[in-house]
């Protein structure tokens, strides 16, 4: 049943990875504004 130990460590490492990604995204300001991008996507890209 040692495989369980391995699996648990894998899952924990994975989850910690997700947590780190979340913290990074908050820190870089991706969650600061959740409504403007919804308008932004409506703009057609400019030719330049």
């Amino acid at each position: 049943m040692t495989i369980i130990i391995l699996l648990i460590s894998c899952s924990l490492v994975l989850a910690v990875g997700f947590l780190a990604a979340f913290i990074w995204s908050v820190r870089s300001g991706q969650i600061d504004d959740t409504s403007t991008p919804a308008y932004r996507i409506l703009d057609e890209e400019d030719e330049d």
Partner: protein
Amino acid sequence: MKAVAEKLVCFHCGDSCTDDEVRLEEHVFCCEGCKTVYQLLKESDMCRYYSLDEHAGLKMDRPVAQGKYAFLDDKSLARPLFQFYSETDARVLFFTPSMHCASCIWLLERLYKLLPGVIESRVNFDRKEISVRFNPFELSLRQLVEKLSALGYEPSLGEKREDAGKGRMLLFRLGVAGFCAGNIMLFSFPEYLGMDTLSQTQFSALFRWLSAALSIPVVTFAAWPFFKKAWQGLKHRDLNIDFPLALGISALFIRSVLEITLGWGSGFFDSLAMLVFFLLIGRWLQDRAYESLSFERDFKSYFPLAAEVEGEEGTRFVKLQDLQVGDIIRVKSQELIPADSRIISGNARIDYSFVNGESTPETPDSGETLYAGGRQLDGLLRVQILRPVSQSYLSALWNQAEAGEENKGIKNFSDQVGRYFTLALVLIATATLVYWLPQDARKAFDAFTAVLIVACPCVLVVAAPFAFGNAMRWLSARSIFLKNPDTVEKVAQVDQVIFDKTGTLTEKSAEIELLWGTLTDEETCKLAGVLVQSLHPNSRLLFNHLNRNDFPQTDTFTEIPGKGLKASYGHEEWKVGSVKWITGAKGETESTSVLVARNNEPIAEFRLQWHFREGLDELFHTWTLPRYLYSGDKARGTEVLKKWFHNDHMFFGSSPEDKLRAVKNYRELGHHPMMVGDGLNDSGALKASWTGVAITDDVHAFTPACDVIMVGKSLHDLPRFIRFCKRTLQTVKFSFLFSLVYNLIWMSLAVRGELQPLVAALLMPVSSITVFTINTLGIRYFARKGGIQ
């Protein structure tokens, strides 16, 4: 000239145009300002602005004054505005309250096309902020601000913005709590499924210890704000709403640690982590709701205040925030000093009671400094602005004016309830613990924590301010400005309304007729010089009628409320006012007459015929609230008034003191009178009333005595306004009741130990969200139904 078949609408801002004078190519504009912006966009090939949202532009009829932003060239003044600054790269964050649609975002994020030197610009639409990165070598901060203003997006530089990153800490906590809660639940699965008996004990021990380890960041980091607030409360000998939560979390944690160390069981780490996770979600939602409100509620940005500025061609009205240092403004009798300034001419007698509570007026000499917030009592003052106007200071003053008054509002009520409720809650929880402990220790702890968590009264505390703030937002869209959210509640309690007549029920324009006498050119000028100093509707009207701007300066001036004006030019003494006051005549006199006397000798008499505002028939016809009329005039023209007021409810010839006394009298009788006046000669009554409503046409007449400012043309909305406030209060009360019943039901289950802490943790935020939803939807419904939209 071809006939204009359809209504002309400005291509830029969508306002109706009076003619098609201002045009460019095939488009019509309402003013030169709008045309300029169009040209600007056209040159840069950015007309897509108009295709995203039709008439997206902002009306540009009031161009930003030249040199307003000259101070930005001063490095020491400009520096604090930068978030980051180097020789070639600078970043600023502006609050631009005027952005309102997708087109605004589109344009503002393409500033680099319009303005060489801009590297990048990003908009945060919720917060109405724009962050601009630019090269200060190519583009100065002043140019940037001026360009933004020219486009209609004038940034508000004065206010310190709270950093958008403030909410990030909560998100970190939320993330950590979610991560731990998820993993702890995974480790708890064997227990949930009853596998602990068959699986090896080593695993179950491992899982328990892993759960315990994961719960440590939950308690020490994620739940930290609850502990901190509870502790802060305790230090002030106060049980606040965070206390039961902190207690519940500690109880769960300590008990779980005990269980696993002593080998009793697996503990409640899963419930603990989930509880904190849900609590934080609730708090996050609450913050979001509040934030969206606070950015809309910023009434300073549309609060209409203006001052009369002297220019080369007479005077003009300028919005307070557009006043510049060095401007010379006219402050009339009873007006507020909008900014720190120096006296140029005029007799200053300044009442600083709104600022420092000192009731004896000060009489500074010419050249001395006056401070913002003082009220001029005697005559016209010409002052020069020394420091920029702080509108927030004036609004703060408005709020402060009544700070001393005791407020036993529902907000206060919810604070009280919050406190007692918390105390009761802790007592009930302890009683539950004591009751169950001898029978079943496990159940006792379950019940204890469940009671603490499920009945948390957080929502009681936040519901009322949230609802009132929401209502305030609806009303401001209708040009009804409330002093603060609590005013909603005060308006809801109004049970009688007292009206002033002149300037309130009547319009500001009237027909003027010279009854007898002739005035020479010089006399006309002198009369204008007297009249210009007074804010009384009659004086203003007559002054406008004379239409003279070359008037001389009087040597003395006094305004005697309810009687008239007294002034002197050297040895000449001028009086303007009621016939009775000047001639000492007894009995009935023409009340709408204004007599002009020089050295006590009448030289002319004017008759003023005021018109009643439109929509008053509609206003009074359907309205059942008791109403009274107190007019400074004599009983004339009462035929019209009889339709609106009961004969015994009309009082004529009342002085400002009479009005004040009447209002006080009604209050002593236990009524909640609303005083509706023009805020000039009845400010005493406005202040003494339960709620004072100032009706204003000239937006510059600002009186801190009132609770509500209404624009004259929306006077007929008054019953709707009161009804809406009543409905808002009912909605809040209903949500309180709902929350109470909800809490009682679940608490009764929890006391009996039939509620798992985990379920309690789920139910708590549900109750908060429901109360917020009831308030938001309820108020929106009543706003729509009551015509406040």
